[in-house]
C-alpha cells in the first residue's frame, strides 16, 4: 500500500468543490492522511522551517502551494527530488495544469481542476499501486493518449538527446514500442472516441 498526504489549509474551499458525502469519503480513505486546521498549520510551519521529517512516510504528496512559503515549497520539492516521490501542488491562481518528470514526477494544478478531476478514482488506485502514470489524475482515461502524443512528438523529432531517449523508453514501457503509422492510427481512434 502506498501512502498519500493531502495538505489543504482552506477547508472552506474543499467544501466548495466537494459535497459533504465526498469529503467524508475522502477523510475515511485508508492510507490517505488529510490534515486540516491546526494539524495542517503545524505541518506547514515545519515545512516552512525547512523540516521535511513529517513527509517521510508518504509516496505521494499533495499540497496547496500557496499555503507554503518559498522555503516550504523548496523543502517539499527537494524532498521529492531526493526521494524520487510524486508531488502535486495545487493553487487557485494556476491557469493551466502542468507536468514535469525532471528528477521526479511533478504536477502543478489549478485547485478547481484538482478537486473536480478524477481525484477519487486516482487516489484509490494510487494507494493500491495501480496507477501507471501520475497524469491519470488530470487526464483520467486519456492519460495513455497523452503518452502516445508525447511519443509521436519524439518520433517526429527524430534526433533525440539522452534525456529524451530515456523519456521515450519510459513511455515504451507503458504503451509498447509502436511504429509511427500504427501510432497515428491509435491516436486517431482514441481521439475519435473522446
Amino acid at each position: 500500500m502506498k501512502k498519500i498526504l493531502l495538505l489543504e489549509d482552506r477547508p472552506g474551499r474543499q467544501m466548495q468543490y466537494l459535497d459533504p458525502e465526498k469529503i467524508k469519503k475522502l477523510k475515511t480513505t485508508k492510507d490517505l492522511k488529510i490534515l486540516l486546521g491546526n494539524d495542517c498549520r503545524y505541518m506547514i510551519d515545519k515545512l516552512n522551517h525547512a523540516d521535511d521529517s513529517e513527509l517521510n512516510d508518504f509516496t505521494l504528496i499533495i499540497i496547496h502551494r500557496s499555503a507554503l512559503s518559498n522555503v516550504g515549497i523548496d523543502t517539499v520539492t527537494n524532498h521529492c527530488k531526493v526521494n524520487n516521490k510524486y508531488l502535486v501542488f495545487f493553487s487557485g491562481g494556476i491557469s493551466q495544469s502542468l507536468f514535469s518528470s525532471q528528477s521526479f514526477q511533478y504536477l502543478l494544478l489549478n485547485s478547481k481542476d484538482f478537486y473536480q478531476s478524477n481525484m477519487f478514482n486516482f487516489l484509490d488506485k494510487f494507494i493500491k499501486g495501480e496507477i501507471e502514470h501520475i497524469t491519470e489524475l488530470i487526464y483520467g482515461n486519456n492519460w495513455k493518449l497523452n503518452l502516445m502524443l508525447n511519443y509521436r512528438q519524439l518520433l517526429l523529432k527524430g534526433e533525440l538527446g539522452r534525456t529524451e531517449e530515456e523519456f521515450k523508453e519510459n513511455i515504451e514501457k507503458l504503451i509498447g514500442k509502436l511504429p509511427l503509422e500504427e501510432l497515428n492510427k491509435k491516436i486517431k481512434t482514441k481521439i475519435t472516441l473522446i
Partner: protein
Amino acid sequence: MNAILIHANNLSPFFVDKFPGDKVVIDYSQSIQRWNFNLDRFLHEELSNAFKNHEYKVIFISYTLSQQNYLELTGLHIAAHIRLTCEFNHQHTPIVFIGPETPWEIAKLSEFSNILFTHGIFYTDKLDIGSIQNQYNWIIEKKPKLTDEELTKSIKRLQIIPPANYQSHHSIDNELALLRWSEYLQCDRQISEVKENLKTGLYFKYHRVLNPVKPSKTGTPYLISGEGKVLLIDDEAEKGWEDFYKCFFQYNINNKSIQFETLKLDFKSSTQENIIKEACCKVTEFYPDIVLLDLRLCDKDFNTNPQSEPKDFTGYKILEEIKKINKGIQVIITTASNKVWNYQSAYDVGANGYLIKKGDSDVAEDIKNIKHIVETNLIRAGYLKCTCKKIDSLRNSLDSGIRHKKINRNFGKELINLLEISFRMYDNVRTKEDFAYAYLALFKCLELIADEYTFTDCGIWQVVGPTPLNHYSWDDQMKKYKKIDPPGFKNGIPTTFEKIAALSFQLWKYKDTDVQQLYYSIKRRNEFIHPSEKDLSEKLKEECKRIYNHEGYFVLLKQISDIVNKITQ
C-alpha cells in the same frame, strides 16, 4: 520570410534549422518547479522579448510547448496571449499552428481550442520548408492581417474562464479597483503582485479587452475633516487594501487625527466562526468609529451550490455583532458587488454606507466619494457611539431597577421601549428636523417619569412618598427657584416642567442650576411644538436651537439618565 517560429525544442531540429525566419524557444520545463512559477507571467515575458522591435507578418507556433506532457497544448495559450496583448504589437498577425493533429482533433483535447476557429488562425501538419514557405506566401497574398472587427469577434469567441481563486466577478472588480485607486493615489508600488497579475494574467487581458476602461488620472489624498478610529476588515487587506487606505488617510494618520488599523488574520485558513470571533475581539479592543467591512471573507461565502445568501456571508454576520457591541459604530460595507439585494439586507441590519469597488468607474469620483462617506460617518460616530453607550447603560439600570423592584415593571419596560424608539429615530437622522423628531420621542421618557412619580389625590397634587407637590417658579431677581405657596397651577394641573421641578427639588434633591437645565430641555420641546408669540431671550433662543442637532438629544438623554439613576437606586 518575415515570420517567427515559436517552439520548445520539441520539433525536428532539421526543420527548425532550415526555417527561413526568426526562431524562439519558449521552454518552461526547467522553471515549473520554481516556488513562484506562473505560466502566464512566464509566457508574457518570453513573448514580450520575442516581439520587441519586430513586426512579423506571420507567426508559427507548435501546438504544444511541452516535451513531456503534450496535452498541455500551451501553443493555444501563446496564441491567446498574442491576440489579447496590445503591447506585443501582433494582435492582428496571422498565426499558423504546427502539429500532426487537425484543429478538430485539438478541439476534443483542450477547452482552449476556440481560438483555432477564429479569424487569422491557420494550421499545417506538413513539416517541410517548401510547404511552410507556400503557406506563408498564400497568407501574405490572401489574408495578410485581421481587421479590427475580425479581431474583436475572435476575442469574443475565446471564452477564457477566470482562475479558481477569482471566485466570482467580484474578485476581479476588487483587484481592478485596487489597482486603479492605488494608481490614482500613486501608491501602486506596494501592490506589485496584483499589478503583475493584472498585466500578465491571460484572463485579465481578456477581461480588459472586453471591458475597456479609460486610463486613470493621478491625484492626491485628501485631508479628511474630523477625527476618529478606522478599522479595516478585509481578507484582501494584505494584498494591497491596507496600503491603499494607509495612503488615503496619510495626512490624517500623520497629524494623528485618524488612527487606522486592520484586522490581522489568516482569513483563507480560518473558519467563519473564527473570523467572526476575531473580528469582534478587535472591534471591542480597538473600539473604532468606522469599520470598513468586506462582506465575503472566507471560502464559504463564495459557495455556489447552494448559492450563499447575503445573510450567510461572514461580513454580514460581523455587521450584526458590531451593532450588538455598539450601534453607533459606523459600518461601511466595501463591496465589488452591484447587486441591490446585497445592500438592502445589510442596510436592514444597520450598515451605514457602501463603498462600491468597480473596475470601470471614474476613479477621481470614487476617491471623492470615499472621503465624503468617511467624513459623514466620522461625524455620526462622534455622537452616536457615546449616545448608544449611554442608552445601553440606561437600559441596564432600568432592568436592574425592575429586577430589584425599585421601579414598577410596566413603567420600566415602557421607558426602555421609548428609549429604543427614540434612538432608532436618532440613528436614522438625515435632516435637522429629524433630530427634533428624535428629541420629541425621547422627551416622552421625561413625561412618563413625571406622570409616574406624581399623582392627584382628592384634587391635591402629590409626589410619591406621598407629599404634596410644591409649585416652583423662577425668580428672576433672586436668580433661583422659589416655592409658591399655595400652589397656583394653571387650571389646577401642573405642567410637565412643574412636575419635574417638584420632583427634582423634593425627591431628587437637585440644585437650581440642574432644574434650570431641565427647564431648557422642556422649553426646547415646547417651542418646537407651539412656538411662543413673544420674543425669547438670546440665551433661550440658543438653547432651543439645540433641538436641531445632536447636542439637544444628548443633553436630554443625560438628564433622563441622571433621573433614572436616582429612581433605580
